[in-house]
C-alpha cells in the first residue's frame, strides 16, 4: 500500500497530532505545526541544493574537461543550468516531515519563530553534524534542545499526554508496525525494558506500590519518545550489539536525570548527550549502515 516505511511513520505521527488537537486540548497551535513543516522542508531543500551542488561540482571536475576559456558557456546558460540543477534536485520530503511532526508533537512554543529555529536546527544538523556521511544527532531531539536552551520561549509538556491505557495501546500498536517495517524494534525494546526495570528497582527500594511504577511508565510522552524518536535508524548505532548497549545507556541516563536531577525533560537530554557516542559505537562495531528500504515495484534494469 504505502511504499516506504516512513510513510507509515508520517501517517501515525499525523494521526497522533490530530488526536492531540481533537482530544487532548493542548496548547497546540496549528500555526506552529505549519511553521515546523514549512521550515523543515525549506531547510532540507536549501541544504540539499548547497550540498548537492558541492558534490555535483566535485564529480564534474573529476571528468576530463576542455579548457574553460574555450568552452565557456554564455551566462544565461549557466543560470539555466543552475536552475535546472535546483529543479532536478530530488526533494527529500519524508525525513523533514517526520522531524517536523515530531517537533510539533513534543515541543511547545509561545512564538512561532522559536518553532522555526527548532526546525531549522533539526534539519541543518543532518547536514552539518555528520561523520563519515552519517548524522549522529537525532534531528527533532536536537531541535528541541536548541529551542529549550537558546530561547526563553519553549518548553515541553511531559504530562500532557496523560496516562490513559488506550493511548498507550495506540502508541504501541502503531509504533510496532512502523518498527517492524524499519527493523529497529530492538532499540525500543531495550530502552523501554531497561528503563522499566530501573524504575521497578527504585519502586521496590522505596516501597511504593506497583501502581506508582505503572503510572511512571505509562506516560504518553515516554512512549512517544521510545517509539518514534529513539528509533530513528539514521542516528543510532548500526550494529545490533552497539544499539542494545546504546539503548541501555540511554535508559540509565534518563533514569538518573529524572530521579536524581529531577529534570522533567530527562529523556531529551539523555538522547542529546549520548548521540555523539554513536560514532564511537559505529567504529567499535562495524556493520552495514541503515538505508531506508523502498517497497517499490522493481525498477526496470537498464543496460
Amino acid at each position, binding site marked *: 500500500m504505502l511504499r516506504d516505511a516512513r510513510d507509515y511513520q508520517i501517517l501515525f505521527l499525523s494521526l497522533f497530532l490530530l488526536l492531540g488537537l481533537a482530544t487532548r486540548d493542548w496548547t497546540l497551535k496549528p500555526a506552529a505545526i505549519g511553521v515546523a513543516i514549512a521550515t523543515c522542508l525549506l531547510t532540507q531543500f536549501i541544504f540539499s541544493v548547497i550540498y548537492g551542488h558541492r558534490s555535483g561540482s566535485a564529480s564534474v571536475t573529476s571528468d576530463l574537461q576542455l579548457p574553460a576559456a574555450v568552452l565557456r558557456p554564455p551566462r544565461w546558460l549557466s543560470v539555466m543550468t543552475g536552475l535546472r540543477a535546483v529543479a532536478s534536485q530530488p526533494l527529500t520530503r519524508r525525513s523533514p516531515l517526520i522531524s517536523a511532526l515530531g517537533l510539533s508533537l513534543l515541543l511547545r512554543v509561545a512564538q512561532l519563530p522559536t518553532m522555526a529555529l527548532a526546525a531549522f536546527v533539526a534539519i541543518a544538523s543532518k547536514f552539518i553534524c555528520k561523520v563519515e556521511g552519517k548524522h549522529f544527532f537525532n534531528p527533532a531531539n536536537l531541535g528541541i534542545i536548541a529551542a529549550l536552551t537558546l530561547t526563553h520561549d519553549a518548553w515541553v509538556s511531559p*504530562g500532557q*499526554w496523560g496516562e*490513559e491505557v488506550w493511548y498507550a495501546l495506540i502508541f504501541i500498536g502503531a509504533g510496532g508496525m512502523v518498527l517492524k517495517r524499519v527493523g529497529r524494534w530492538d532499540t525500543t525494546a531495550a530502552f523501554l525494558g531497561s528503563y522499566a526495570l530501573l524504575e521497578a528497582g527504585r519502586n521496590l527500594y*522505596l*516501597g511504593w506500590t506497583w501502581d506508582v511504577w505503572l503510572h511512571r511508565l505509562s*506516560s504518553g510522552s515516554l512512549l512517544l519518545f521510545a517509539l518514534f524518536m529513539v528509533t530513528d535508524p539514521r542516528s543510532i548505532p548500526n550494529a545490533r550489539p552497539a544499539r542494545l548497549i546504546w539503548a541501555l545507556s540511554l535508559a540509565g541516563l534518563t533514569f538518573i536525570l529524572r530521579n536524581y536531577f529531577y529534570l522533567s525533560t530527562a529523556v531529551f537530554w539523555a538522547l542529546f548527550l549520548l548521540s555523539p557516542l554513536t560514532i564511537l559505537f559505529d567504529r567499535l562495531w562495524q556493520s552495514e549502515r541503515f538505508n531506508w528500504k523502498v517497497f517499490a515495484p522493481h525498477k526496470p534494469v537498464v543496460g
Partner: protein
Amino acid sequence: MKRLRPLATGLIVAIACLIFAPSAWAFCGFYVAQADTSLYNEASQVIIARNGDRTVLTMANDYQGEVQDFALVVPVPTVIQQEQVNVAESTIIDRLDAFSAPRLVEYFDEDPCYLPCAECIDADPSATIDRLTEESGGAFQSPAEALGVTIEAAFSAGEYDILILSAEESDGLETWLQQNNYQIPAGASEVLGAYIRQDMKFFVAKVNLDEFDQSGYQRLRPLQIAYASPRFMLPIRLGMTNAQGPQDLVVYLLTSQGQVEVTNYRTVEVPSNLEIPLFIKDEFGPFYSELFQRSYDQRGRNVAFLEYAWDLRGCDPCAADPPSLDEMRQAGIFWLEDDLEPWEFNVFITRLHVRYTRDKFPEDLTFQETNNRRLFQGRYVMHHTFANANEQACIARQMDSYGGTLSDGEIEYLRQLNQNYVAHTVPERFERESKNLARLTGRDLSTIRRRISAEVPQPQPSIWQLRYPPQLP
C-alpha cells in the same frame, strides 16, 4: 454595544470555601488528632513561590478542631532550620484566592433600537525539647535514637512548636510519632518509608498553647517554610493514607517566568468564557461546584485543573485588586527588589485545583515552570437583557431624542432593529445560555429554560416565555 461591568468583589465568590466537601485527612501531610476529637479539614490551600532552586512553601491552615489536638506532619526535601520557618498572616491566602478565583462577569445590553447621532521566635531549641518532653511525660526525647529517629532541629515559630525529624526506618518513625502522641493513620508506615529512602525529612508541627493564647488569634496562621532544592513537588501521598473520599487542593504557584504545569499528570483548563443564564448570579458558588465536579468526572478524575494563569503586572477584569509588593512578600516571593513599580513585577501566578483520590493519583505531584505566558481565567459571562425593548416605547424614545420627527424609513428601520433584538438576539442567547449550563453542570435543560422564563427579566411580550412557559405543564 455592550458595556462590561465586572461585578463587585462580593459577587466573586471565594469558591474554594464553598465547594469543598469536608474530609478528615488532607493536605500534603496530615493533621493528626491526639484524641477522638472530630476533625474537620476543608480544602487545603498551598502557596509555592519558586525561583531557581529556592522555594517558599506556605501552608494554609483551615484546621477546625481543638487547637491543642492539632499536629501536622509534612515531608520536606531538606533539613529546615529555625530561620527558614515563618508564620504568615492568614489574610494572604484569602487575598490570592479572591484575586484568582473563577469569576462571573456581567454585561448589560443597551437599547437595541438606537439611531446613531454624533514575627516571634523561641531562641533556645533545648527549651522546646524540654517542654515537649515534660508535656509528653518524658517520652519525647529518650527513645528517639533507639528508634532511629533524629531530631535535626527543634524550635518555635509563632504559635507553633516545630521539629525537623530524619529517620532510618519507617517503623521507628511511626513508633516515635505514636509515642509522642501524634496519632498517625494506619498504613502511613509504607508511605513514610518511601519518603525516608528518598532522604526526605519530616516537618512536624504542634501548637504551643501558651503562645497561641497570648497571640490573640482566633485561628491558626499559615506556616511558611523556605528551602533550596531542585525538587519542585508537593507530597500528597501521606494525606491520602486514611482519606475517605476525594480531597481538594488549591495550589497558588508564584514564579518569575511563566505558567507552571504538572509534569506527571495532565493539566487541563476549566471550561471558561461561556455565557450562562442570569439567575446564576445568586448561586455562582454552587454552580461552579457542579461545573467542577462534572469536569472532574468527564476528564477521568486524574487531571489537575488550571483555574487561573496571569501575569501579576495587571489584570483585566480584576476579581480583586492585584496584590501589592508587600503582600507578594508575605506570599513568599523573595526575588522582587524594593522600589519596583507594579508594572516591573516579574511574577506569574498559576492557580491549580486538584481533586485527588488514592486510586487516580498514585504519585506525588511534580511541577515544572514553563515559558508559557498565556493568560487564562475561569470566567463566566451573563447578560442583562434590555427589558424595555418594545416597538412603541422604542419609537417614542427615539422621537423624544430627535425632537418628535422621524421619517417613515427611520421608523421602519427602528422596528426592524427592535424586532431583531426581541425575536433573535434574546431568544438565541437564552438558548445558548441554557445549553451551556446544561452541558457544564448536567442540569436538566427544560428546567433551565423554564427558570429563564420565570426569573430572567426580558422584553415583553416574550417569544421565549411563550415557547417555554415558566410553570411546568
